[in-house]
């Protein structure tokens, strides 16, 4: 027994790292960083400037990656949970973001599409949009958990209808908010040179970390995602747990919708967060999580989200035309996904082990 444990420990350190789930997104980040460093070392330059209002603000590629990656990273949290518990993905998050953004505009602007002053406090608008987004999450969750509809089919309904609902909320108008405080949530607060969405994302990470630490969400979600029948016989309610993950994703959607509106004071409901659901799913996959549910690692998903943003920024820097961007992105993604496939990683780990073995033999003699 103890000898077995020892052999396990002896397995090469490197191959152990490669088998770690979080290895892939970290490796991808490092590769992207090294690539950019070789192509143009100035990629990493960060400068402190001032924006139009005279507030100090950091700018540079790294800053914009972290800033613009916020939305995707927040969504990745919820998408990871939904994937793990229901063994499927929610493809309606883009449409749901349009809805929650429209709700914020509606509450802030009232019936006037160009209000001089806010019609309601920002916190009220945010809370209302949270409720609405969670209600839509609950709708998806109920379809999946109670009516046992496949997640992709269930969320297809909102995917199709969501953006028209968003349009209807504001009578097809595009209201604009000019309130300084509100816009600070999407850019910077005076005196703080880092963009607010970064802080919002950090708060989200801390909240989910606390939830993971002080509740059994991880164990329950994994258990339900892996074996529903066993989970039930151990006293869990699988339907409820799936439902909860969809509501949590709804909350993430509300936060993202808030950031989206706050960045420019308005949204175009027909294009806002378009295709973001696919990027969110991709972030989960890049994090090495199985899209078939079960075990999950939220940190890896979040890193996966930043990998996607890093990649996008890199391609922009290389002057790739925005039309051609998705094609380039796809190539890199294919490489990453293949590298993260367990079968390939086993092989790589085996190569490292072999490289190590002669070394060991040499040191013994």
């Amino acid at each position, binding site marked *: 027994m103890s000898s077995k444990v020892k*052999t*396990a420990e002896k397995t090469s350190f490197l191959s152990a790292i490669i088998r770690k789930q979080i290895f892939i997104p970290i490796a991808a980040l490092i590769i992207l960083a090294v690539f950019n460093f070789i192509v143009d070392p100035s990629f990493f330059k960060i400068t402190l400037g001032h924006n139009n209002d005279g507030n100090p603000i950091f700018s540079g590629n790294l800053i914009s990656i972290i800033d613009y990656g916020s939305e995707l990273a927040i969504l990745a949290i919820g998408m990871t949970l939904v994937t793990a518990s229901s063994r499927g993905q929610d493809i309606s998050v883009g449409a749901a973001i349009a809805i929650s953004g429209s709700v914020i505009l509606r509450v802030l602007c009232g019936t006037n599409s160009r209000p001089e002053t806010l019609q309601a406090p920002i916190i009220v608008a945010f809370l209302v949009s949270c409720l609405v987004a969670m209600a839509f999450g609950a709708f998806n969750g109920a379809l999946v958990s109670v009516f046992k509809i496949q997640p992709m089919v269930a969320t297809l309904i909102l995917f199709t209808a969501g953006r028209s609902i968003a349009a209807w909320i504001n009578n097809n108008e595009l209201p604009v908010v000019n309130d300084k405080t509100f816009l600070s949530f999407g850019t910077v607060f005076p005196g703080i040179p880092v963009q607010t969405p970064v802080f919002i994302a950090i708060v989200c990470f801390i909240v989910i970390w606390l939830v993971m630490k002080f509740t*059994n969400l991880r*164990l329950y979600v994994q258990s339900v995602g892996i*074996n529903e029948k066993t989970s039930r016989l151990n*006293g869990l309610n699988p339907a409820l747990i799936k439902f909860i993950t969809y509501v949590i994703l709804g909350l993430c959607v509300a936060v993202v919708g808030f950031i989206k509106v706050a960045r420019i004071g308005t949204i175009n409901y027909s294009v806002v967060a378009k295709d973001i659901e696919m990027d969110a799913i991709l972030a989960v996959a890049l994090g090495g999580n199985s899209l078939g549910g079960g*075990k999950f690692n939220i940190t890896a998903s979040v890193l996966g989200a930043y990998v996607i943003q890093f990649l996008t920024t890199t391609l922009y820097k290389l002057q790739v035309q925005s039309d051609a961007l998705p094609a380039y992105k796809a190539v890199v993604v294919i490489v990453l996904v293949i590298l993260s496939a367990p079968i390939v990683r086993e092989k790589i780990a085996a190569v490292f082990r072999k490289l190590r073995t002669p070394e060991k033999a040499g040191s013994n003699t």
Partner: protein
Amino acid sequence: MQEKSLLEMRGIYKSFPGVKALTNVDFTLRGGEIHALMGENGAGKSTLIKVLTGVHIKDSGDIFIKGQSGPVQIHSPQEAQNLGISTVYQEISLCPNLSVAENIFLGRGKSQFVNWRNMNKKAGELLDSLGIAVKPTQQLASCSIAVQQMVAIARAVDMECSVLILDEPTSSLDESEVAKLFKLMRQLKERGVGIIFVTHFLDQVYEVCDRITVLRDGQLVGEYEIENLPRVQLVSKMLGKELDDMADIKNDAPPYSKENKGYVYEAEGLCSSEGIKPFSFNIRKGEVNGFTGLLGSGRSECVRAIFGADKVTGGRVKVNGKEVRINKPIDAMKNGIAYLPEDRKRDGIVGDLSVKDNIILALQVKKGFFKPFSKAEAVKFAEEYIKLLDIKTASVNTPIKSLSGGNQQKVILGRWLLTNPEYLILDEPTRGIDVGTKVDIQKLVLKLASEGMSITFISSETDEMLRTCSRLLVMRDRKLVGELTGDELTQNTIMNTIAGGDR
């Protein structure tokens, strides 16, 4: 290579990260013999079979096959099949929605087109020659499990196999079906096919096999002619120690005392959505009782109703004399009831999760969503039960699915013991696991009972029930038909009660 040998494996080594699964194992199969491969769970039987069928690649060692010059390399199941090695697994891997003939010929047609009439005719001839009574055009799903198994064998045989591997083929068959299967095996033996037979049933080994190879802890213990290896010795070779445990257990069984008046659990008119007739049932503190009856008689459904695993549709339940409602598993758990389900893979394990998480799961759920155990606590619990139940695992973080069946069962047993139940229900805890673990579990049941736990024990093996239970409830056609205690607890009375008025 010897003259008579069909297959020789020499000095096979195979290790997985952290575990040496096979160390210098030899195995020889001769033509026209039925060769039992025996060993405890984790002894390396499955690994050896998987090396032979190309599922795993051996680390070193040679495999010789009759008609092939020099050692052969087997890299995939396809290659194994081409070399004449066919396998029939415990779980039937055929397509239930296709006909018998289609299943036999599936994936083997040389041309793009199928001559249906010809195919059915050929299948008919094959089935006739093997004495399998089934029409080629019948849909596979409509055949009994035994017939399906035989169709799988027919498929394997027709692929010109010389080596046939039967991996636990009898575990889901009843006696008459087993007899049919054995007849088929003997026919194949006469044709010169070498059969490797993996099973946990000692009776069956002695009924049908010619030779036995015993493995223990990934090493070869020896190869024996069946006449030279009495049963007791086989068991002791598998366990690696002299064994009179089997005899001990019977003596240990506690006499059922009527003095102990307090019922831990009482049910009246309990019934569930699974169609069992309302039944009444009770159990005292420290009592071991059991439900017996044929497969499908409703014995599992009864305990599932007690635990709330199926939808409870009626009846009154008292725990420690107080009336309670048990509608779902969590209600039962809160009332100190634990249930180890019959189907380990489907209802018991959470495959991808670690041994540790599997052990703490039930207690954690009972404790509540907002009160997770710290990592240290969880590890402590897991290590405690790994030690107590002697679970063989590389570490607490090993996924449970990579453990052998018996060790998985022990993990689930540990999970429920950790909840410190007053009343423990064990539904077929010994199915598909080796003799050593079976003995361990039976001993544990009696020990727990002597410490005051009430236990309901269900097993297909009557002698196991006789050894452990002091009261038996007999089920027939989803109805409770009798209760046996004391002197009535003999094979004969049980059989008669099960058979009932049909005599």
